[in-house]
């Protein structure tokens, strides 16, 4: 089995207009910058993007939004040091926002990957974000029903990968990435080092290859926070 791909451009070529795309990362940590930039190069319109944030500065997800590729964003915290791209479009009514509490966002994605269509959580009970959602009482406490979240594609970033799709992550760059691998119909991963099958100790694998469809080596990957501190603009 060989899921490896020669380039980021080749890996994202299959993403059409109108697709729902999960993008891993939390703030600047764990975002697959090269895959996002390859998608900007390719161009795609009317995307629904699922990410914890709404981009920062002029690179990565913020650049996708600035290029008007995103019509809807599902996230928990659309604020950052430099959120202009999203904020301007949101206040102009040009981008739709579905705001989801962070733990609910994570669990909805996990549920999507695990085949669980809905679950109950105490989070958001009695608040504006629970409006219109069914409420259930369990052992005397009220919980809000939330639905799974799935996507056509996931773009994720790992540290080590092998041609089977097995992956590890670096430091806190793990965050949403393993969950999104599970919840997308087609998961595209960039890894800092692609090793032969057997090159990752099976006990150290965090994402088993069954959740990954295509994997591309990007040695020395860019890091969103570092790019922003340099004032980088893409393209």
């Amino acid at each position, binding site marked *: 089995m060989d899921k490896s791909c020669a380039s980021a451009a080749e890996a994202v070529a299959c993403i059409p207009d109108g697709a729902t795309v999960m993008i891993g990362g939390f703030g600047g940590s764990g975002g697959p910058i090269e895959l996002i930039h390859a998608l900007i190069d390719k161009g795609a319109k009317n995307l629904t993007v699922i990410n914890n944030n709404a981009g920062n500065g002029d690179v990565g997800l913020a650049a996708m939004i600035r290029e008007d590729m995103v019509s809807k964003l599902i996230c928990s915290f659309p604020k950052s040091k430099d959120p202009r791209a999203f904020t301007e479009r949101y206040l102009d009514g040009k981008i739709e926002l579905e705001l989801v509490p962070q733990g609910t966002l994570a669990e909805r994605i996990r549920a999507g990957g695990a085949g669980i269509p809905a679950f109950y959580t105490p*989070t958001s009970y009695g608040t504006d974000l629970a409006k219109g959602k069914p409420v259930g009482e369990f052992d005397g406490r009220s919980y809000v029903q939330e639905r799974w979240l799935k996507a056509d594609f996931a773009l994720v970033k790992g540290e080590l990968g092998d041609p089977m799709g097995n992956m590890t992550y670096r430091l*806190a760059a793990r965050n949403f990435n393993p969950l999104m691998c599970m919840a997308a119909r087609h998961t595209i991963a960039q890894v800092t080092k692609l090793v032969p099958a057997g090159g990752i100790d099976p006990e150290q694998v965090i994402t088993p290859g069954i959740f990954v469809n295509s994997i591309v080596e990007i040695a020395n990957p860019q890091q969103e926070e570092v790019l922003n501190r340099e004032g980088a603009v893409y393209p």
Partner: protein
Amino acid sequence: MTDFAEIKLSNAQIAWRAAQDIEDGAYVNLGIGFPEMVAQYQVEGREAIYHTENGVLNFGAAPAEGEEDWDLINAGKKAITLKDGAAFFHHADSFAMVRGGHLDVAILGAFQVAQNGDLANWSTGKGVPAVGGAMDLVHGAKRVAVVTDHVTKKGDPKLVAECTMPLTGVGCVTRVYTSLAVIDIEDGHFVLREKLPQISLEELQAVTGGELKVQGTVADLIVPTL
């Protein structure tokens, strides 16, 4: 009339007071911003293990400038370091720790706290809404405490009979550390535990939106100069 601006505690002093209640061995989540200061005043001889929503347990102080690794950040997107015995995990596990009742204490900021424990701290109702992990955090930790100024910049009470701002959670706060007092929330009431000795109960009540109940002694709120 006592001039509150002269005597009120600084944010550092409020954080210091909150830190005194963190037990040895506690698993703790500190909200982004002001609550993060609590970690600086950990009581000597006690070890608290700090959790951050983005998937780290047992992180330490910020690294020296220039030493940051931006893959290693906290929920406030600030660079952190690791202590021995740290662990990484993905977001679903992280919030299982939160909702599953595995954290001992969560300490958050507030716009308003109501006498029934309702908390409003995520939205002023204007501009771009952003919630992050606040709504999850208030429903998991065994103790949910708030650190806050006692009144707003305009002088309005932040401890209120009922929240008028969008809620983060219902009936979730158990203790409030303010710039003037320490107040528990029990059975739908504010119960005054400590107050600055320079302020009378009447003066404190005048800047508090719900009734302050007194059960037993009210201790003096004494903190060091920081």
